[in-house]
């Protein structure tokens, strides 16, 4: 039935004269659970379904979407998409052109073993409660808040285009985490496992949450929060910095993921998130990092939060190198932006919308820092003096993605090849290409997928789920201890 509605939308806009139309039926279901101080404070289920129609008319884009899934309202939004496109044409400089992509008839489903929506609420809450209670038990006096989280997302997407594409996808992801907040004399210290801001997420079934073993890590998480209370503050200095995967994932996200988005580089996000220092004249020649740095946009990585079959323009999932041995070699692009640059390989396949009511924009898939040759322990042993930082706490970067500053939940001083002691309020700052230029080593034994389910971009604002495969890496001469 929803396929029929999508077809009606295509036919209606085409009849009016649209030169290209696509229609997306999307149904998103989500479940959010939060256990705090022994109480299941949040049990939220959300369900949104709708159709979005994108049309090119008179050489310009128009988009309309609705949650009312009735024939009359679908005809109405198809007409609206056409009308809005005509309005866009009143202020256009050039006609929209799309790079070619084969019109596929295909299906894709996230491979899962246990459907997270079929696991009983009791089982999920028991898992969360057990982990949360273990964290709380570390110290009744000092652990003031302990929490555990679970989130599951199921998305059915049906994409039809006037070029003949018919793609049916079912994306499932889930995950969670545990955190402990220790407070003493106004000093607030938080530790989280496996990541801050509600945990880690993968395109996978409930087996992913089970693999995290929240209960098995809750005690150490809370203990470290308590240890931070008596730790010294991160010194203000320039030193060798080791960053673990949980923090490095966000570093890759902010300083490589966003600046390699071609829409940013071409100026179409200038009014909100900003532009990019990776201007088109730098493509293929700019030294972004050291030869140790290779980064790809890979929508095919198993488990990655940005893994899917096809993007929201019907382009198949691709693995596109962005940085090859330190050199900037490619952008993340759409059919339109790829055509503007005449990219021979066409779109990188990263166009996604966060709901049926949003127009797709260039989004990260899985932006992966390829693993290095080291084991984490070897990296530490090889470092005479430095700091190891872990788990993101704060993040900020300028509108061209150059000047960044990150803070982490925890850090350790490294002296003579071993972790000496824990320090708190750790921050580091730098300029993107100088920072990546100082990377001299990365590990391979802790490389895994980190999920970022809350990447904001666009106007109107959209929130997308993206992934990052990273391990621990080492950087020389980094300024730390700013706050």
């Amino acid at each position, binding site marked *: 039935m929803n396929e029929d509605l999508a077809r009606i939308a295509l036919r209606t806009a085409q009849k009016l004269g649209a030169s290209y139309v696509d229609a997306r039926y999307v149904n998103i279901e989500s479940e959010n659970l939060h256990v705090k101080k022994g109480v299941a404070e949040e049990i939220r289920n959300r369900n949104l379904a709708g159709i979005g129609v994108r049309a090119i008319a008179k050489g310009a884009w*128009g988009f309309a979407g*609705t949650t009312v899934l009735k024939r009359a309202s679908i005809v109405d939004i198809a007409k609206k998409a056409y009308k809005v496109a005509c309005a866009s044409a009143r202020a256009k400089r050039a006609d929209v052109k799309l790079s070619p992509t084969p019109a596929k008839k295909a299906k894709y489903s996230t491979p899962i073993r246990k459907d997270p929506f079929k696991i009983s609420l009791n089982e999920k809450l028991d898992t969360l409660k057990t982990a949360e209670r273990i964290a709380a038990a570390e110290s009744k006096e000092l652990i003031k808040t302990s929490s555990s989280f679970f989130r599951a997302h199921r998305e059915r997407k049906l994409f039809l285009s006037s070029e003949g594409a018919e793609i049916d996808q079912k994306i499932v992801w889930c995950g969670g985490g545990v955190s402990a907040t220790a*407070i003493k004399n106004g000093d607030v210290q938080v530790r989280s496992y496996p990541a801050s801001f509600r945990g880690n997420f993968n395109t996978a079934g409930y087996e992913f949450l089970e693999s995290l073993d929240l209960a098995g890590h809750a005690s150490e998480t809370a203990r470290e929060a308590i240890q931070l209370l008596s730790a010294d503050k991160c010194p203000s200095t320039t030193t060798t910095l080791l960053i673990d995967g949980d923090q490095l994932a966000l570093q890759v996200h902010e300083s490589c993921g966003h600046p390699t988005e071609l829409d940013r580089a071409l100026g179409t996000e200038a009014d909100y998130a900003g532009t990019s220092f990776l201007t088109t004249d730098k493509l293929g020649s700019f030294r972004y990092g050291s030869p140790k740095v290779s980064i790809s946009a890979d929508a095919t990585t198993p488990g990655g939060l940005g893994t899917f079959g096809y993007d929201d323009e019907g382009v198949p999932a691709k693995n596109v190198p962005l940085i090859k041995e330190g050199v900037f070699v490619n952008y993340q692009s759409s059919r339109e932006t790829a055509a503007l640059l005449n990219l021979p390989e066409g779109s990188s396949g990263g166009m996604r919308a966060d709901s049926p009511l949003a127009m797709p924009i260039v989004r990260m898939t899985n932006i992966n820092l390829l693993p290095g040759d080291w084991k984490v322990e070897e990296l530490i042993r090889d470092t005479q003096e430095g700091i190891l930082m872990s788990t993101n706490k704060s993040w900020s970067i300028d509108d061209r993605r150059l000047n960044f500053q990150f803070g982490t939940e925890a850090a350790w001083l490294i002296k003579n090849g071993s972790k000496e002691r824990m320090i708190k309020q750790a921050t580091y700052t730098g300029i993107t290409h100088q920072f990546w230029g100082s990377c001299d080593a990365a590990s391979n034994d802790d490389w895994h997928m980190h999920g970022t389910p809350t990447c904001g971009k666009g106007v109107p604002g959209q929130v997308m789920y993206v992934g990052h495969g990273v391990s621990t890496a080492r950087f020389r001469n980094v300024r730390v201890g700013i706050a």
Partner: protein
Amino acid sequence: MSEIARKATSIAVKKGADQAEATAFTFVEDLTRFANSQIHQNVATYKNGLRVRAVLKKKIGDIMVGALDPSSVEKAVNDAIKVAKVSPQNELFKSLPEPKKYSVLKGTYDRKTATCNPNLRADNAKRAIQIAHDKANFVKAVAGSYMTGSAAFAVANSLGTDAGAQISLAQMAVTVISEKDGSEGHGYYSAYARNMKEINVDDIAVKAADKSIRSVQPTRLEPGEYEAILAPDAVALSLSYLSNGFLATWFQDGTSFVKYNLGKQVFHEKFGLKDDGRDLATLYVSPVDGEGVPKQALTLVKDGVVDEKGICYDSYTAGKEGKKSTGHAVAPVIETFASGPDLTNMIMSPGDASEEEMVRETSRGVYVSRFHYVRTVNQPRMILTGLTRDGTFLIENGEITKPVRNLRFTDSFLDVYKGIQLIGRDQERQAFATVPQLKVGKLRFTGVSEQ
């Protein structure tokens, strides 16, 4: 919508809920976005939905669906009850809010704004682009958006609450990029209103273009402590982070700076801040919150002093402390990832200074048009980091002398706002706060961005 909310509530009670609440909502967002001096995205969206909370012996089912047709309403109610039945008891939950009388706010909805034609938005975009380009031949590109639409919700609960609100919205933002000898200068200006008649396209375009033209060829300013003049946009963004300290969720978790400074003068004595959802000077006005509780005007900061009376609550967080909600529950129409109360109608008291006076009173300082990507580094100390953007200038001996590259700041905003020297006499409406311009004695800049 009121009827749908009442019906859903009554179905839930008939099906066994001890208490039930239903909120029906609609959100219309039509937005024309431009960049590189042409329209590149143009959307028209209609979203509706229903949130149902069913309570059975303190067990709560919380369901939201994106539909308002009778079968979806019934299914949402059934699902909420189903979830409640299998949920554990939440002993911290006291009750859904009791009904309270409130007076309706008039003049918050303009039909023409809510149903604006896309051609009008496109023509306004075109006009802003033309005006900016006419200002100088080195204006390179104009970007921005023009949005019109409306938001409405109706909430009913089994205790008799039957309330709602409706507003229309019009917003325009313009970014102008100029370039001289390969060096870019950016300028930005925006306006937020409930009636598109209040959106002065010419004024927005001129202000953004002027700043952009003056920003080209910036020089590098060494990081350090400087006096600073913060334009309203920068003040509002910093307040949106400071305001977290007044949320019951932060206060109860012990992460709020207010908790550690009760009764203390943490800000300058001239610093006054309130939140008032009924004050038409703010944008997202509503007589009631997302639970139908009348919005209470809260004094957050008085004479620079913070205390417990400034903490905002929804019914759940209030119940934990045996208090009543202050009317700050978020309506499902703007539900975000985080749950709990929020401040959306802040107003900072004006002073008596003009911008000229602020500049005149600055011996060596930085003029900040906007902050960008602000984040909290330390919650109890309210240490924030972020960057300047879209027009940063050096002030020397009482005069703006030259544009400087964007700077990173890292500082405690308890200290920054303790050091307020002058407060602007004019307030400007931003999205979640209506604020004046400020001059502060010290802002710590910790880095410089590259050109």
